């Protein structure tokens, strides 16, 4: 299939998200993704979550400190709703957690450089 012209492709924004969770092991991307989806459907419903489409792109997490950084992709028009969804995540895999948006970028690379821990 032909790829869409650039002007027709969906526009995304990448949220640099600080993750705080008391975990001894590493944080699984899937666990974070399911917590985000759960929060999104609970807050916005299925159509609302589809409009925001929050997707965890990358996770960096260091267990000894209980802190890490995740990159979450949302639709450009839905950054504020994405922020609300992330605020409603209070546990990941049953462990109390907090997700704090550090900033918003237009590319994954810029997001990691600006808001990453390294």
């Amino acid at each position, binding site marked *: 299939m032909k790829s869409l012209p650039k002007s027709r492709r969906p526009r995304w924004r990448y949220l640099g998200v*600080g993750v*705080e969770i008391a975990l001894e092991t590493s944080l699984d991307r899937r666990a974070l993704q399911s917590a985000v989806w759960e929060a999104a459907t609970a807050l916005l419903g299925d159509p609302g979550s589809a409009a925001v489409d929050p997707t965890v792109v990358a996770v960096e997490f260091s267990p000894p400190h209980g802190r890490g950084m995740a990159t979450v992709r949302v639709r450009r028009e839905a950054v*504020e*709703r994405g922020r*609300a969804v992330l*605020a*409603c995540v*209070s546990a990941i895999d049953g462990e*109390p957690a*907090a997700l704090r948006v550090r900033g918003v970028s237009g590319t994954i690379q810029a997001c990691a450089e600006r808001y990453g821990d390294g």
Partner: protein
Amino acid sequence: MYEAVHPPSESLSSVTASATSVGYDGLVVRDGGADVPLDGCDSDFDIVPGLTVDADPDAASGRIAARRRETTLLLVRGGTPDRNRFAVEEPRVDVLAAPTAGPNRFPFDHVLARAAARNGVRVEFDLGPVLRETGGTRVRAVSSLTRLRDLVKTYDAPHVVTAGAGGSLSLRGPRALAAVGETVGLGHDFVVEGLREWGRIAARNRDRASENWVMPGVRRGRYDPADWADPLVEDDS
């Protein structure tokens, strides 16, 4: 902007560090008064001691009289029509906390909203259940908040907004709370205004507790126009 937290089980310094990182200028500690331990907290970060009176109207009146001077911020926990009515009709109360938390029918009405506006008692909007509960509990919480918002806006009663955090993990930043408020129908500006209000009450009460304050509009000492700058107006410069 300020946020109100329950006395945390962890050290207060870790909560204040989180609060600083998400953009708060200060925190109100809802209980503990002047006994709140400030070990390890950043001295630039403002911590406002508060006390919460959780009692039925018969007992609450005496407690308010006893505690008003002990603390900067005085909150009264509502939840029933009687408690809410008592709190909004008492000008010595700063904040009516959890006005809709009880199991009863919606315990707030236009009469109470008018009284709150008349007496300057701030009505609290707790976003905690929206952030941490699920299912029917959360649906009822959202419905109560929007109903309360309509009353408070109609009668121009002052309000405060909080996430009801009890530790650094349940603390949420001002932009996150504003986004949640916008999503559940409270409105972005309404939430931001509610977060600013904590700082305004603290500034007003500290001004009143200072030696030079006699009564509204009357100060001790020589006349200096700088002393008359309204502490409630934020300096944007």
